[in-house]
């Protein structure tokens, strides 16, 4: 089943068995169940036994209010389906109701997601792992005092704040199809966090992430946005992601990297419009991993859940430097993976509206922004190995 490459990384993986049983509501596309499907697939591929597997301690109120406002968290803590009719004003204020419904255990769900990312950050800070993984996290739209895009508490911001205790510079990379607006906003005015988001832009949620949004104040040029059009494929994505991130790594020289692996950028996503396969998506993990900088992998969007669990399983294998068979192993949710029962998915036959010219022109603009950063130290940063 497995072949090893040289020097596998030490990987710490975070999961709480309860997280798959939260339910956003009938018809809601966000299904925490996909985390459990990923977990079970990891087990049956034998990947589980190759990692350190942890159950994180749920984040406390105090920990979540390191970023979020007390009022917002207090609201989340107390709101329940059976008392929400009395709280319509607050719900409007905190943007809870439609995209972000009140569901049973919503606060606990935030605690698990944030607890996982905080634990993953501590682990990296203490140099006890090379790569940490929390597929329960990556909820990049949540704002300081506002829910947004199915996200209530921003585990990413909390994790980055934790990393900043030990690292002068932290890099955030976001390959969800949606703009990582929550994280960008949280660090929009600081140079200690650089946020880079590759996303569909134009008549698309959340509407932010224009090429010309580069950060403000001390954070100017520390926000990077690569707006994309429908139908981008593995090849085009790699063609922009690799040089851009190569340049970012060289210029910014981060002490730690957080990669949000939103899987709604995959082909066939229920809410997405890109045309990536697991290989193109996973290539981003592979590329960032090679720099040898402490790396955190987080989940995020992803609404065709059989593909989400395929993707995150594959990316766990990438983190572990382990090849896994295309034939899916038997597992509790095997039937979800029919009719082919294969790991890898095929791209759709759709038009890639990202022309070569568009991508090149955008990249040139991005490189111009990057040149505005303070000059990088003499030593060039390079992927290790290969």
């Amino acid at each position, binding site marked *: 089943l497995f072949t090893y490459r040289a020097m596998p990384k030490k990987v710490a993986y975070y999961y*709480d*068995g*309860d997280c*798959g*049983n*939260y339910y956003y509501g*009938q*018809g809601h*596309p966000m299904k925490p*169940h996909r985390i*459990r499907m990923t977990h*079970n697939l990891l*087990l*049956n591929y034998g990947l*589980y*036994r190759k990692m*350190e*597997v*942890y*159950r*994180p*301690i749920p984040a406390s109120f105090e920990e979540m209010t*390191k*970023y979020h406002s007390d009022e917002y968290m207090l609201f989340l803590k107390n709101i329940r389906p059976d008392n929400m009719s009395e709280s319509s004003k607050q719900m409007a204020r905190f943007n809870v109701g*439609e*995209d972000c419904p009140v569901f*049973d*255990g919503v606060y606990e769900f935030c605690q698990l997601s944030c607890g996982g990312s*905080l634990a993953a950050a*501590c682990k990296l800070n203490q*140099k006890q792992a090379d790569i940490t993984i929390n597929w329960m996290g990556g909820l990049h739209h949540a704002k300081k*005092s506002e829910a947004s895009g199915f996200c209530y508490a921003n585990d990413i911001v909390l994790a980055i*704040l934790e990393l*900043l*205790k*030990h*690292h002068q510079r932290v890099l955030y990379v976001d390959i*969800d*199809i949606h703009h990582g607006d929550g994280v*960008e906003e*949280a*660090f*929009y*005015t600081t140079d200690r966090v650089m946020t880079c988001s590759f996303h569909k832009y134009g*008549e*698309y*949620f*959340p509407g*932010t992430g224009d090429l010309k949004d580069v950060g403000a104040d001390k954070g100017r040029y520390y*926000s990077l946005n690569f707006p994309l059009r429908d139908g981008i494929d593995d090849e085009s994505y790699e063609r922009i992601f690799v040089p851009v991130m190569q340049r970012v790594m060289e210029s910014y020289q981060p*002490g730690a990297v957080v990669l949000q692996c939103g899987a709604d950028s995959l082909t066939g996503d229920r*809410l*997405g419009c890109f045309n990536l396969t697991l290989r193109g998506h996973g290539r981003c993990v592979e590329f960032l991993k090679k720099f040898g900088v402490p790396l955190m992998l987080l989940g*995020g969007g992803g*609404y065709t859940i059989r593909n989400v669990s395929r993707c995150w399983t594959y990316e766990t294998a990438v983190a572990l430097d382990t090849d896994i068979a295309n034939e899916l192993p038997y*597992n*509790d*949710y095997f*039937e*979800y993976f029919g009719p082919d029962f294969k790991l890898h998915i095929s791209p759709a036959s759709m038009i890639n509206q990202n022309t070569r010219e568009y991508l090149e022109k955008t990249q040139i603009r991005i490189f111009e922004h990057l040149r505005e950063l303070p000059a990088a130290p003499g030593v060039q940063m390079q992927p290790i190995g290969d």
Partner: protein
Amino acid sequence: AANLTLLADKGTIRVGNKYQAEIPENVKEEEEDENKENGDALVIDEEAQEDAQEEAQEATSQDGAHRKMALTERERIIFHPKHSLTDQEIDQFLIIARAVGTFSRALDTNSSTRFPTLHMVAAAASRDVTLFHALALLHQAKYDLGQAVRYLCPPCNKDTYPFEAEKATGLHTTSLGGPILCRDQLEEWSTAESNLFEEALEKYGKDFHDMRNDYLPWKSVRDLVEYYYMWKTTNRYQESKKQK
């Protein structure tokens, strides 16, 4: 994530105290590099997780060498790969765990009257819940297969079973004094309950809250959700789809 209606939003990035995070000032990186041992890394004796810590700290390999496993205070360890067991040995242990699950179902009157074929019992005993718990027990046994199989078949004495494993996996294994039995919702439900569920699903759709209140108040919403996703893998689901 994306909004339910897929309509474009007119969001903006806002600047101000109400939007940005407060950035911590002091960076411990440098001192850390100089003197790793005195950094933030926890020392062993945190009371809350004493046992787990100790076990993690001493992952004794078969040749007697001790390897250190550090834990932060933010986690509870379930499994790690720094042991001297081979992949084959773990596979053997997982087969034993399935075997124990099969046997415990044979001894359990509820289970044994329930499965029409032996093959179905073995399949029930091979579900992921059994394997997860077995791996958690293997960790609690410090990767000593002998100790781990003792845990698979604990005597009637609380001291002989590592309840830490249940805390780690969140699973509830069965009473002591025989081969352990790990069951998930798919198996916990009686046929009558399954029938009620399908009836409720017909009426309410996937509104598990109402479904619970009206049909299955002795279950939790989480039980219903877990059951729902498992039920979708069964023949019953296939049949209910055909009927529509």
